[in-house]
């Protein structure tokens, strides 16, 4: 998933779970059935998992923008000075 997709997935998960919990509590209380409440909530958890966990295409709509190669060449990667190689070079020069 891209970054936007991950954010969407997290928000969607939170909202869905809370909505299902509130609905389950309300319906269970009105019908005076504890079992109904638990079944509605369990169904809600499964549905939420099916929607938010797999990598659906809808979570990949905002692709990561990698830098264009021609642009990358204009900004070369900085060279790291390694002490051992320069030491070897100077000894070769002396000989």
């Amino acid at each position, binding site marked *: *998933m891209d970054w936007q997709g991950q954010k969407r997935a*997290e928000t969607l998960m939170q909202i869905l779970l809370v909505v299902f919990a509130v609905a*389950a509590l309300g319906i269970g209380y009105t019908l005076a059935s*504890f079992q109904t*409440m638990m079944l509605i909530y369990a169904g809600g958890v499964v549905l939420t998992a099916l929607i*938010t*966990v797999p990598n659906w295409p809808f979570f990949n709509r905002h692709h990561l923008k990698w830098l264009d190669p021609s642009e990358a060449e204009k900004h070369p990667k900085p060279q790291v000075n390694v002490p051992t190689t320069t030491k070897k070079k100077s000894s070769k020069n002396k000989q």
Partner: protein
Amino acid sequence: MHSFGYRANAVVTFAVTILAVTCAMVSLSDNFNSPSPTADVKVLNINWFQKQPNGNDEVSLTLNISADLSSLFTWNTKQVFVFVAAEYETPQNALNQGNNLRGKDYNMTLHWHIMPKTGKMFADKIVMTGYYLPQDYK
């Protein structure tokens, strides 16, 4: 939320946390219920009333108990535990001491414990007065 496992863990953990909160609300909803049970205990027969070797008195009663406990049950009730206790006073203890009970007056108390499916257990009782033990052993 960058991998399948990460998201699956998030869903399960959040779901369980919300379940705990929901159960707490269910338990709180029990406080809206005001139970009003009725009970009637009749002593049909006093089978025996004897002094035991260790000094205590022993009584065997046949009771007819009728009670309406329907108001105790809510959607969150798993079971109701009910029992009847005979209680009396003596000079030494406020409640229940075992000897010299001839002619004593006692109360029949109906106790109940409402055990919930989730949350707090409520226990209460009704006291019924005006019962008497016989004047002589039999």
